[in-house]
């Protein structure tokens, strides 16, 4: 069979070129197939060269290419190789999904910083579009942070949120109520005029928290109530 592949190499590569537009990778694959066929290193060698193919070509094209080789070369285990291709592709896909998942986690952390800005005062600026997953992880992290720092006031700034619908509104209300259960005041700041109007129309009500115009007045208010508490305790 090896001899046959060597003899037909040029014709084969021409055919494969027609399918995928490239032949260098196919040549590598055929050479490493011939080198390793019947040897102990076969599985591993094939995995490496197939990974190359999978990276370069569409799976359907690879299948067609292997079929073509099978037609030309008697005894070529096209089905067997195709099974290996699928394994390799599966593996590659898994790796990609892992990367996406990791990136999402990185993004969630990047997008929701929590800052201790004053004694007993924490600021959580929200930025961008909130989907349910991000909202969930953000709420968890904020609650942990509040518990760890024993903060008395959390300022949630929504200047960077383009739109608050009932989902985001509902999530914020839930998060505010949870923070209050930790014995911490919540101040929301930075609601834009267009969002204010929309919230009223939607009937989303933030009456459980204090609303301040912007971060500056929110911070001023937060400091004033924490200082008052501090004096009262003495």
């Amino acid at each position, binding site marked *: 069979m090896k001899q046959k592949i060597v003899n037909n190499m040029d014709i084969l590569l021409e055919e494969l070129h027609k399918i995928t537009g490239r032949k260098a990778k196919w040549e590598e694959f055929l050479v490493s197939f011939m080198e390793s066929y019947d040897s102990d290193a076969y599985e591993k060698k094939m995995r490496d060269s197939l990974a190359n193919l999978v990276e370069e070509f569409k799976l359907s094209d690879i299948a067609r290419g292997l079929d073509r080789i099978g037609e030309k070369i008697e005894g070529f285990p096209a089905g067997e190789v195709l099974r290996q291709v699928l394994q390799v592709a599966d593996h590659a896909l898994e790796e990609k999904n892992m990367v996406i998942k990791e990136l999402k986690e990185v993004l969630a952390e990047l997008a929701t910083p929590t800052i201790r800005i004053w004694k007993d005062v924490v600021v959580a600026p929200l930025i961008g579009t909130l989907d349910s997953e991000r909202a969930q992880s953000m709420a968890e992290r904020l609650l942990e942070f509040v518990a760890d720092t024993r903060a008395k006031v959390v300022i949630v700034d929504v200047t960077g949120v383009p739109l608050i*619908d*009932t*989902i985001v509104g*509902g999530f914020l209300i839930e998060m505010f109520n949870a923070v209050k259960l930790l014995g911490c005041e919540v101040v929301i700041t930075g609601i834009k005029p*267009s969002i204010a109007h*929309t919230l009223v*129309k939607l*009937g*989303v009500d933030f009456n459980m928290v204090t609303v301040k115009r912007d971060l500056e007045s929110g911070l001023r208010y937060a400091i004033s109530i924490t200082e008052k508490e501090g004096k009262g305790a003495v």
Partner: protein
Amino acid sequence: MRDIKMEDYDMLVKINDERDIVVARQMVKDFAKRMGFSLADITKISTAVSELARNIFRYAGSGFIYIRENTGEEKEIEIAAVDKGPGIENVEAAVEAGFTTSKGSLGLGLSGVRRLMDSFFIESEVNRGTVVIVTKRRRTF
């Protein structure tokens, strides 16, 4: 059920997963901006689309958002949200504030959409799907 034809509309967004909600919102926002709506109205329109797309995703799994510009005496934007989902048993109750069938939801979606827009039409048949059509006029000052 009202028949919504693609060719009658200027734009179509398919809702298949949560990310499509953001896409729909973004597209309608650009569309409304091009039509010359005020910033406050653009926010209302895209919030309404966000609610409608969310309902499609949550209850029907998949469906479509159609968008078009109606030119008459006054320019208006028309948005149709169409799905072939389970339908709504009691439509009247569903558009009341506070109605919800899912836990953790405020139940303000449909009633909110009605208040955000100028006109609101809903038709639903159990096991056949739901059509919601809303419009908003462009106010000229």
